[in-house]
């Protein structure tokens, strides 16, 4: 693995990582459904950008594929699917319910970020052969944790789906730095996977909206042990 990458590329990737985190925070706390979706799109753009930077710095052709696939599925396909699934509700400036207040959840997010960092800290020294991993792996893990937290936090189906998708963004953001040579088959399959997941969940959201009249899932709490 090429350990002599330029500091410029490293810094650029670092900035993208910072943006990636901030946009993830946006997905978590944005009050409006459309806002959440936009933050997610921009985050996917950041993932694309990071993949491009890494592709150039590491001379890895397969990362170009990752960039292309990410862009076409997450920035173009997923929003289209969601707009179709949630219908006009996504344009409604309706506020998204949260289980916690935003200030509290933001603090939880900060704690999670530290947890992510400490979890990944013992791994970092062994990744010295892959300079980008020092930035991308913690960022990715944090985004996975944040995504999970977003899913738990939000009571709105579209926002929960966004949480799932930023988890996936996080997993890819972390892994493009360490595995820039996934076999092409795995990449294509992963690319097919994301739209399928989004499509099926979108269909489910559509059904929920048809049956319950809203895309809100916070009120669905009939099933539990008595």
């Amino acid at each position, binding site marked *: 693995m090429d350990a002599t990458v330029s*500091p*410029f590329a*490293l*810094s*650029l990737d*670092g*900035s993208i*990582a*910072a*943006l990636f*985190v*901030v946009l993830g*925070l946006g997905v978590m*706390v944005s*009050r409006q459904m459309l806002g959440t979706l936009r933050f997610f799109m921009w985050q996917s753009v950041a993932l694309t950008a990071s993949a491009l930077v890494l592709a150039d710095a590491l001379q890895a052709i397969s990362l170009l594929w990752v960039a292309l696939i990410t862009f076409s599925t997450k920035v173009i396909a997923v929003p289209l699917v969601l707009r179709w699934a949630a219908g006009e509700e996504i344009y409604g400036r309706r506020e998204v319910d949260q289980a916690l*207040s*935003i*200030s509290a959840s*933001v*603090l939880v*997010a*900060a704690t999670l*970020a*530290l947890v992510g*960092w400490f979890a990944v*800290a013992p791994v*970092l020294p062994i990744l010295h052969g892959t300079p980008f991993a*020092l*930035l991308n792996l*913690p960022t990715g893990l944090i985004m996975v944790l944040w995504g999970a937290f977003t899913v738990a936090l939000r009571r709105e189906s579209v926002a929960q789906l966004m949480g799932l998708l930023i988890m996936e963004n996080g997993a890819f953001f972390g892994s493009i730095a360490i595995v820039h040579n996934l076999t092409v088959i795995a990449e294509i399959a992963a690319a097919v996977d994301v739209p399928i997941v989004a499509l099926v969940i979108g269909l489910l959201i559509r059904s929920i909206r048809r049956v319950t009249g809203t895309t809100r899932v916070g009120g669905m709490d009939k099933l539990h042990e008595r």
Partner: protein
Amino acid sequence: MTALGTRFALNLAQVAFLLIFAPLVEGVLHRLEEIIQGKRGPSIWQTYRDIWKLFGKDEVISEESTWVFRFAPIVAFVMPMFVVLLIPALTAYPLFFAFMGDMVAVGFLMAVSGFFVALAGMDTGNVYAAVGASRTHMVGFLAEPVFIMVFFSVSYVANSTIPYFVNATWGASWGSMLQPSHLLVILAFFLLILADEGRIPVDSAAGKVEIAMISHSKGLEYSGTSAALIKWGGTTKLMVLAMIFVNVLVTPWGLAQGTQWTAILTAIGLVLIKLLAFVIVLAFIETTLAKLRLFRISEFLSVAFVICLFAVSVRLVGIG
């Protein structure tokens, strides 16, 4: 002239630059916002005309008010001038007063001006002004931790809080410019400017409804010369913050390296261009976002806080 004398003169030039161009910055901002909204908007010189007109008007002062009311506009007008002495406005090298105070002092000077204006607001007995004063302080309290975190991260990165050194640290190379922590600090500081300057989404500068105002209702009682000073002071404050933002944080280049007049004039031109870019961004944000409800401001600032926390922890773990 001696070197010291030149630097002193340059310091004065900075103040003059601030006083002369501050109304223009605000005028351009107004015009741009109106254009984005699809209107023609007032001339970019309108703020100068307003200030000129106000200077020519009679002043009415409530009998109930005290000296605080008369004193506050002067403080509000003078403090940004003090601040500009401390920051790299035109030159990349430290000037005469540069070591008088650091970024904490900048924050302090701003706070003094805010404090007096708030006191003056309560002094008149005008209900809206008092409400505005208390709201301003609420925003201020919430912004305080963010301010502190910004200072932490800045000093952590640059090992100094003197604005000139911070500027030099970040301007050193592309590598240091693009550090994640730097980027995060920029973002957090921008959110702070929005909150501190009473811009959308925290407060609407163009709003005309007293009940919804936060910082702008404090000046309602002023007229004549005092009103002119308050208005002028407001524009210089915006410009000073914008200069800290663009010259120290975002684009720490383009400042004069020498003392020649040509270098200074080029620097003036470049700083104005940077300010224009800042104003364009600000205008876009102001026109595309909606004002937050009062109780949502804490959320806005808590996001800024976490971004700052991130900037510091990125440095702490040593990966940025």
